């Protein structure tokens, strides 16, 4: 089967990444700073890839992704802290509830187009955040203290599943249906594609993985507060996706990695940090408006050249 070759390449690559990081961590060659950075990067990749499905593949302009991150973070934290459920179960619950939230948000709003959809999703995310502010059960503004459970292994497994599921979905007739909606909704409809169903489905899947990322997030950073899930957080995720190249999964991954590293590196230059970060954004966009990889995947770069150029 032709299609399974990249699949096995991906599995092998993943296993190698996991093994190497695990080995270095256990052997102490990788100090806690780097292993924590790797976890942060992985969480950001999950976020980027999940939003990539919504924006890059389905073409639905959602800028409220932090809302689903918050749902996953809080629900999973409630599961472990209040109900003392196992962490793995909490991750699943966080994802499922975030997906439900995605359905609730998606069904009424996804009939909106373009910027109207954008502001509606942003609005929903803000509503979620304001609700958290006002619920004393989860600590309101003071937030919730969460025990540290996130490990490299759990993070890696979640990351692996996220990428696998989203790329499998994309490279199937269902993914093509989503892409056709992005390309021309009227024509997609005329080709017999239930556009509402696929928009909502992509949104729910994206929300699910944002929720998973939320669970990893809350159990990695000791405390969650509603203020950490504002629209600026949504913008951060959006930036990963666009900077990587809309429609390119590997682009999202690469830009999530790069931007997280840049941001971590700049933490020690407080005075100029945000200035440099914003300049990077603007300059990359000015000189590469299609993003780092455009719509291509990193695997395309290794493909046999004449296959593309020739007529």
């Amino acid at each position, binding site marked *: 089967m032709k299609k399974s070759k990249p699949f096995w390449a991906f599995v092998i690559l993943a296993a190698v990444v996991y093994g190497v990081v695990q080995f270095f961590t256990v052997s*102490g*060659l990788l*100090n*806690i*700073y780097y292993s*924590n*950075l790797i976890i*942060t990067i992985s969480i950001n990749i999950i976020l980027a890839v999940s939003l990539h499905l919504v924006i890059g593949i389905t073409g639905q302009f959602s800028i409220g992704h932090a809302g689903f991150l918050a749902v996953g973070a809080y629900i999973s934290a409630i599961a472990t802290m209040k109900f003392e459920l196992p962490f793995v179960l909490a991750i699943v619950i966080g994802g499922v509830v975030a997906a439900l939230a995605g359905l609730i948000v998606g069904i009424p709003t996804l009939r909106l187009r373009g910027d109207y959809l954008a502001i509606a999703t942003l609005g929903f995310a803000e509503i979620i955040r304001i609700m958290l*502010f*006002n619920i004393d059960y989860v600590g*309101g*503004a*003071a*937030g919730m*203290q969460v025990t*540290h459970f996130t490990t490299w292994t759990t993070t890696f497994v979640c990351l692996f599943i996220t990428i696998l599921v989203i790329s499998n979905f994309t490279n199937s007739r269902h993914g093509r249906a989503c892409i056709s909606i992005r390309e021309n909704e009227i024509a997609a409809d005329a080709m017999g594609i239930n556009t509402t169903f696929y928009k909502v489905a992509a949104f729910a899947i994206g929300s699910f993985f944002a929720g998973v990322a939320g669970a990893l*997030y809350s159990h*990695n*950073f*000791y*405390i*969650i*507060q509603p*203020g*950490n899930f504002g629209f*600026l957080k949504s913008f951060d995720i959006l930036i990963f996706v666009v900077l990587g190249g809309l429609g390119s999964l590997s682009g999202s991954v690469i830009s999530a990695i790069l931007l997280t590293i840049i941001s*971590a590196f*700049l*933490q*020690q*230059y*407080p*005075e100029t*940090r*945000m200035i440099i970060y914003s300049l990077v954004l603007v300059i990359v966009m000015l000189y590469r408006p299609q993003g780092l990889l455009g719509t291509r995947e990193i695997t395309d770069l290794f493909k046999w050249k004449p296959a593309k150029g020739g007529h």
Partner: protein
Amino acid sequence: GTGNQGASGGGGNSDVFKLGVNMELSGNVASYGESMTKGIEMAVAEINKAGGVEGKQIEVIKNDNKSEAAEATNGIIKLTSQDKVNAVIGAATSGNTVAQAQIANDTKTVLMAPGGTSPTVTVDEKGKVRDFVFRTSFIDPFQGTVAANFALDKLKVKDAAIFSDNSSDYAKGLTNAFKETFEKAGGKIVGEESYVAKDTDFRATLTRIKAKNPSFIFIPGYYEEVGLIVKQARELGITAPLMGADGWDSPKLVDLAGADALNNTYLINHYSNEDPDKKVQDFVTAFKDKNKGEAPNAFNALGYDTVYFLADAIKRAGSTDSVKIQEELAKTKELSLVTGVLSLDKNHHPIKSAIVLEYKDGKQVFNTKINP
């Protein structure tokens, strides 16, 4: 790298004392982090000029936590494992301090919070003290209690309204303590309203409060919003005494609210810029010299004091070993600082006297001193 931290925190034997500063330097509450950092840097410069700690110069390594918990965690991990700092001063707000507490304890790095006023900063969910975490300011319940008692005893009010910042755990802590004390002593809370940091228009809610006609309004919050609240309250014809806590203290409050509006308002503070005490006046003068004549606020003073709090413990420990510093910090008694005389209880909560100041024509005037 050499892998995990040694038991005594980072590079013990170098000839500098590395002090990590993990503050809100961008994002929502950047102005508070910035103020504390100013105080910290000033104290460090003074100490270095006077020969440093245990013969070592203090080197400040700053880290911006972007006013986010996740970045605060990442920040302390970086400071402890990469920069191998000897101690960390960090976070202006309680949440972002809590985000660092576990790592500080795990890596046995002293973490000093200038302003983490929530009790949870030094005590974990299970009620256990976090050995390596300390703070300079009072805790919320103390200030809330002080305010309630002041209102009842000095202002002789029987009813009060509360207008608090719902987005800060600080204000919420104060609110709870105030309410409890006030009601226990027979006072009546006639109205409770809240706002969110960064709000600018409080008129609608103030109009509601006015309708309840309270004889006293407690406004726990930070000066940025409080200034506007006081101004708008007076514009709407609210004449009742208003009161807040150390979050109020800043010369900017007078600019924001206007001197007239501030008459008949009170705040609890650690100290007063007007205090003739030499320590205070030296600090105020030195700060003004450094900052183009700008007078210091409570955040500046707390940042400044936190460094001296730490330096005192190092001196008593006679070593820069963090376990020894930690032990001495916990034993701090009667340490005289700009923000008052500080002793720690077993939960690392400072026992400090508070003073109540009254605004008269834009000047803070000493009213009462309250001992814990």
